């Protein structure tokens, strides 16, 4: 199982290395504007084919690149209802604080749980390999975080139930 994760993350890392070749590109549609082309979606020649990397039906990663920006959308593993709620709440918490992350997108792309938007300005300010490390580390940590949250919810539930039922003994 661990081997499976390694393969998935390595595949994503290599795709990002190839896809994150961004450059400053002024908008072709509107004068004096400079906007991420992957979000604008007006000139088809400036956007590359999107790549979808699936680990299984539940976990996948969509990478859409353009000449000056890249959008990475992830769907995290949600095995049962509890994980579903935890994932949704946790990722919503992160997305609302997208400004401090800089590369996070405020709303995930339709059909996914969380999205990143990296532009050429991020690549100019920060090292490309560090950005890719961050994204891959994030994906690893999300799974760990949600498992930990689920564990703590179950533990707390057990403790509360034990305390409550003690009065009936």
């Amino acid at each position: 199982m661990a081997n499976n994760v390694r393969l998935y993350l390595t595949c994503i890392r290599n795709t990002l290395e190839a896809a994150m070749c961004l450059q400053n590109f002024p908008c072709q549609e509107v004068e004096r504007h400079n906007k991420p082309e992957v979000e604008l979606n007006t000139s088809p020649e400036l956007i590359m084919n999107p790549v979808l990397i699936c680990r299984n039906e539940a976990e996948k990663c969509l990478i859409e690149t353009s000449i000056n920006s890249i959008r990475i959308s992830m769907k995290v593993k949600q095995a049962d209802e509890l994980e579903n709620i935890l994932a949704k709440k946790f990722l919503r918490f992160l997305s609302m604080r997208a400004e401090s992350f800089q590369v996070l997108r405020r709303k995930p792309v339709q059909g996914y749980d969380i999205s990143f938007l990296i532009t050429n300005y991020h690549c100019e300010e920060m090292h490309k390999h560090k950005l890719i490390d961050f994204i891959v580390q994030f994906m690893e940590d999300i799974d760990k975080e949600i498992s930990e949250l689920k564990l703590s919810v179950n533990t707390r539930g057990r403790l509360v139930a034990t305390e409550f039922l003690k009065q009936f003994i």
Partner: protein
Amino acid sequence: MAAVAVHQFAECITCHAWSPDQSMVAFCPNNSEVHIYKLFGEKWEKMHVLSKHDQIVCGIDWSLKSNKIVTVSHDRNSYVWSQDGTEWVPTLVILRLNRAALCVQWSPKENKFAVGSGAKSICICYYEQENNWWVSKLIRKRHESSVTTVAWHPDNILLATTSTDGKCRVFSTFIKGVDSKESESSSSDLKFGEQIAQLDLSVTWAFGVRWSPSGTILAYAGHNSMIHFIDDVKSNPSAQSIPLRDLPLRDILFLSDRVAVGVGFDCNPMIFTADDTGLWSFTKYLDQRKAAPSSSRGSQLSEAFGKLYGTSKQVPSNDTVEPSKPRGGAHENCITCIVPLSKRGNTTLCRFSTSGLDGKVVIWELDIPK
């Protein structure tokens, strides 16, 4: 045979150009200004700041004979700066563009310059003596997307362009009164804006077009990590496409008719040489690196590239995880610009300089056997 000098000028450099005597360098530190630095012994001192543009200056060229600087910017304007004593005086050039300008180059005779723009057109500007200003003529047809790079042929008339529609085109820019007619060429080819050739070798965006010093070979890079060499474009074109191992190139420079340097997202200049039969191949990376990337990483990268560009490359996958290593080497971020430096004395050493998004200007030296 490596980096001779490394200078950190700013956080990030968009483009740079050298003065005719190579004592001064002009560059744009990723904002709307152009900084000119002069070398005093070992130290670089900021001499001038040219600030007339409103948006980022994306192209600078310094003419060697007439000592004029031309700058173009994303704000659709272009200025020609001439030195008046100790100050640089700008002259506005009316480009008549309605989108950003992306690249600029002086012609070999320095009586014209070409500007590529996001308006899917090229401007050829020449000086009109009677009115004392620079006039522009536009080539509006043919391009389906932004023009990323322009390159003049040594004959001062042919212009090669690359565009984000993936095509490389060669145009004639003959202007009556500025250019003199050569008796050998046919008159039909010499009409202004006439497209001589269109090359469809690249499936994706094309950058960095350059002519060889004799004007017989044309080279440009495709974003799918390929470099294309075309021999004899006008009459009987024959092309060679070389796939690169890693990331794509942004700019190319010919050091001679047989040696070319490519720079790009690998942060390391690549040398390409042609053998006696004219067959081009990749020779080596110029910079010595500490950690050599393993071959498995290269094959997985090419597979990833294949997916992004809709082509399929069957490569066996590998189990090991490759943590990203900091590369080490002269440049830490993408190299965007490469400029030739003239040779000193009668040596076989060729010098050129590169600038990148890490804010460094690096001077390289390479031995080219005759």
